């Protein structure tokens, strides 16, 4: 891939090749994520779509990992941006303004894992059935009933 560097707050973060056609980078501060996505979009306008957001509950580390998987069409490469949010106050910035395709995935993560994406106005707790209570089903400590 030609553009291997993402610009975040004046610094550059390198995308590391894990195996052919799979690049990834860890972004320590989740609030820097929109900048990283914007820098990807700047390098490939109309050439990046979001494939998925995987949320993983990590109770021992007291955090929730968010893996954003993008596909860069002209480079035929997947780019994964990994970040973590604290489990006690899971908040992350929404990237739906940059890539509207992310909105549905953010809603999914909000509903099943309880991460609040600030700036996404369609987040609502009506995805799960009304009798689900206040828990988030994909958290490891969730109990049915």
């Amino acid at each position, binding site marked *: 891939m030609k553009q291997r560097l993402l610009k975040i707050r004046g610094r550059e973060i390198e995308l590391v090749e894990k195996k052919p056609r*799979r690049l990834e980078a860890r972004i320590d501060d989740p609030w820097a994520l929109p900048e990283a996505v914007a820098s990807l979009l700047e390098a490939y306008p109309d050439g*990046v*779509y979001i494939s998925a957001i995987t949320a993983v509950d990590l109770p021992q580390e007291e955090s929730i990992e968010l893996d954003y998987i993008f*596909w860069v*069409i002209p480079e035929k490469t*997947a780019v994964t941006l990994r970040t973590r949010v604290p489990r006690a106050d899971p908040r992350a910035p929404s990237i*739906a303004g940059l890539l*509207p395709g992310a909105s*549905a995935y953010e809603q*999914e993560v909000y509903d099943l894992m309880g991460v609040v994406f600030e700036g996404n106005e369609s987040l609502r707790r009506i995805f799960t059935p009304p009798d689900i209570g206040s828990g988030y089903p994909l958290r490891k400590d969730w109990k049915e009933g």
Partner: protein
Amino acid sequence: MPVVEVSIGPQHPALHEPVMLRVRVDGEDVVGVEVVTGYNHRGIEKLAESNTFLKTLYIVTRVCGICNMMHSTCYVQALEEIQGIEPPPRAQALRVLAMELERLHSHMLLAAVVAEIIGFESLFMLIMRDRERVMHLKELLTGNRVIADYVWPGGVRRDLSPETAEKIKRSMDFLEQRIRYYMGVYVSDKLIRSRLEDVGVIPYSEAVRHGLVGPTARGSGVDIDVRRDDPYAWYSELDFRVARRNEGDSLARMMVRFEEMLESINMIRQVLEKLPSGPINSLKVPPRRFREGEAVSRVEAPRGELLYHVISRGGAKPYRVKIRTPSLPNILNSLIAYRGVTLSDVPVILASFDPCISCMERIIVVDERTGRERVESLRRLARLAGTDTRGGR
């Protein structure tokens, strides 16, 4: 005229899947659409975490009744990457054979369903009759016409006999001729054209920004296909082209699928011709416990890119299985296509995305509209429609 809300679904004669479209109309004109889902949720991601790796294989095979081979292959590929298992070439080729048969019957099903929604019921019956041939071939190859537990870590579970290979080969000649005929009907029939052409248009940049996949994206000219761009199984050994159209309307999406059906036949013929000999599995018994590791696996399902993200922390159970099916973006993010159409177009447009709600609703999602931007533009559209009415239409 006041804006009226019409609810279509979740069980409705015009929709073949349990989804609800809340359509706001001004007279006949659609001014806003909201997708409401959650009627078919089964919690499969959570279920996967509480079962062993191998039991989860049976569960994910049942995510979708149409493209179950795609789900099991995608999941098994992730397990193989984590464990470092290399399936033999014959198994890889047989996986492609089974997956292309599946794409063929899935696209035929949709061509039939779209014909039925348009009101062309005899075409529906004819295509369904011929689709039965493919279902029969899939049964001969995998052991079952619908849910086939065919793929297994390290390979596949049944070999292909020369007799079955011959039957598949002969049927391909018949199916090619039938599909060319149906494609001709779609191209030339005035009724079909008037219901599909210029209806539900999605421009290229919108298709990319909203993350649409598969024939839905390729109908808008987006050049993506996992089989070619990120080859898996045996696709790198085959010579095929990726169908694409630039119009972005419902007809373009159907034409892409017809061309893909012909390409599937071409691929099936190539597999039968070049099928390597040798074992069909590299392991006698699949492992019960898997190493620590993770893998993102992608396959091109009939509806587009299917993605599995499997995380293992060692042991017998997966730590996390993330499934992203193609219908999720294709249905929830495609509301732009309903702008400015009339109410009667709504079911046809939805069908042209080939919705698979069982696929989509392993998770429960209700999508209001995708992002704030769109809400505003729909309102603007509503205002514009109001002005036109006052203008004495």
